């Protein structure tokens, strides 16, 4: 593993985080007119507006405001919710477990379904199975995740009554209970990503199958599963990992709608309610946290590259 490369990537990640923070900071100050009045709403009393102005620190000169904000971020203090008065950091951290659960569930579903279907399609290129998988992938990309979620609820919760339609059960209430609440949201969230992964796996498998080293492996007698597992999938993994990495953001963004469909109080739900009530500190914190997670995912992908691709590992 080349430390220099990873350090470079980490620094780049930090730069992105700083820029994101700068943007969210500027965002509410770019609001036409007085941000405090906008936040408070049209019917607010002057006192309420003043209070908001005070609590956001808008009375200070801009550089001071920025310095305070930056110092807060570095010490883990993202301010307080204008609504509940609770610390934003606390609110966000409390909302992480449900979101993380469905996002990871979705990722697991997407990788399994996507790689399996994509590999099958790539290996049966041009035949009926391939056409069906490709059509399915096209459909998967065109379906809004919240619609998939509602269809799943209609089928599996309302009609068949197999799985719960709403809410989240923490792991503390048992793995089975937790999983039964995760399955449907995870599938709803993961469908689009599964379709993306299937497309790229298919393309990757087709590319790899045409490589001379596959013919060489076949000339050594490798066939069937030996060939696919040992040579084809290992080499397909490199482009597919990129797609999986990029899908981190999609999954995170997707939690916003999927959590609404399933009534799960995670990050997405917190974000929506904050937008509806114009709770800016929470929104800022949410955007920053999301950016942080994406940056971490990207770093992880960089490390994974090294594990899968020997050319990156030792150069």
């Amino acid at each position, binding site marked *: 593993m080349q430390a220099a490369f990873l350090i470079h990537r980490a620094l780049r990640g930090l730069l992105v985080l700083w820029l994101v923070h700068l943007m969210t900071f500027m*965002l509410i100050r770019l609001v036409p007119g007085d941000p405090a009045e906008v936040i408070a709403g049209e019917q607010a009393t002057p006192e309420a507006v003043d209070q908001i102005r005070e609590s956001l620190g808008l009375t200070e000169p801009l550089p001071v405001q920025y310095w305070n904000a930056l110092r807060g971020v570095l010490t883990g203090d993202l301010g307080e919710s204008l609504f509940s008065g609770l610390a934003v950091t606390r609110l966000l951290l409390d909302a992480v477990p449900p979101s993380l659960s469905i996002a990871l569930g979705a990722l697991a579903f997407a990788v399994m379904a996507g790689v399996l279907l994509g590999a099958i399609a790539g290996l049966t290129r041009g035949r009926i199975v391939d056409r069906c998988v490709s059509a399915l992938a096209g459909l998967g990309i065109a379906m809004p995740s919240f619609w998939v979620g509602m269809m799943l609820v209609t089928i599996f919760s309302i009609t068949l009554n197999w799985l719960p339609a709403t809410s989240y059960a923490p792991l503390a209430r048992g793995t089975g209970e937790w999983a039964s609440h995760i399955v449907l949201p995870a599938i709803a969230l993961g469908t689009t990503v599964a379709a993306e992964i299937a497309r790229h796996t*298919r393309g990757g498998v087709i590319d790899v199958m*045409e490589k001379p080293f596959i013919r060489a492996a076949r000339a050594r007698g490798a066939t069937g599963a030996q060939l696919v597992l040992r040579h084809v999938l290992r080499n397909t993994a490199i482009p597919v990992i990129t797609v999986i990495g990029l899908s981190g953001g999609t999954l*995170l963004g997707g939690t916003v709608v999927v959590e609404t469909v399933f009534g799960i109080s995670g990050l997405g739900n917190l974000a929506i309610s904050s937008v509806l009530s114009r709770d800016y500190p929470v929104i800022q914190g949410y955007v920053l946290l*999301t950016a942080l997670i994406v940056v971490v995912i990207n770093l992880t992908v960089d490390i994974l590259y090294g594990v899968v691709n020997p050319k990156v590992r030792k150069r």
Partner: protein
Amino acid sequence: MTQSQQHPPAVAAVEAPALVSRRSTLRTPLRQGTAVAALVYLLLVLVIAVLAPWIAPHDPAAQDLSNGFAPLSGEHLLGTDRYGRDVLSQILSATRVALVSPLIAVGIAVLVGIPAGLLAGMRGGRTDSALSALADTLLSVPAIVFALAIVAVLGQGLTNAMLAVGIVLSPTLFRVVRGATMVVCEETFILSARAIGSGSVRIMLRNVLPNIAAPVLVQVTLLMAISLLAEAALSFLGLGMQPPAVSWGSMLRAAYESQFDAPWAVVAPGVAIVLTVLSFNTLGDALRDALSGGDSND
């Protein structure tokens, strides 16, 4: 003697040392077929959008509280919603929103992304670095998350929501334009245009723009699909289309709220969204294949 005739052109490539990769001859007509179907569907949507008030069987806004959640029938082909409004008429009249709102978002993305991309691609240097860093930052946060933040500032409503979507999508277009511009500028005819003393603006209009039109057209088609999905999501969340006006996304919101009373209401608006998004995607892919020489394996 007869051997010289009737051989598919594929034969010439057969001797290649690698296992032959035949560009699947079966799929090409199939793809053309689906592309034509997508185009026909989109034209149909356009016609419906224009003619909606005349062809809708009912007034989409007409309430009939005594006939809420009516099942599918000859009178109401797709049933009615909570307030007894005809679902089919709502879907038909919402086709306007389904076309106009992505156009708003894509229009913004075009207005922001193309000039910025041209500037970065032609100028290079610091201008390019700064604009690219900005684009990377915007792209480092999930699109919907940034859109939420912008909606929070601008306020709810369809226009603001689509404005936000347009801003969020512009980095994608920026990257496409920047990349294509750089390639075009490398090519000799730009150099020769410079040599004969053409000004930057003139070069941009005469030489660069026509040459980046193809990738931009492809990207714009694909962005239409993404924008429609974004509109649906934001309206579903209550941040886009505000009642009593309806879009397919806000219809799904209503269906969601009455899911246990009328589960079938989920189907129709969703199908409308999926078909339209699928058509834009199919058209975009077909355009990409056609404009880049059809070398694609999916």
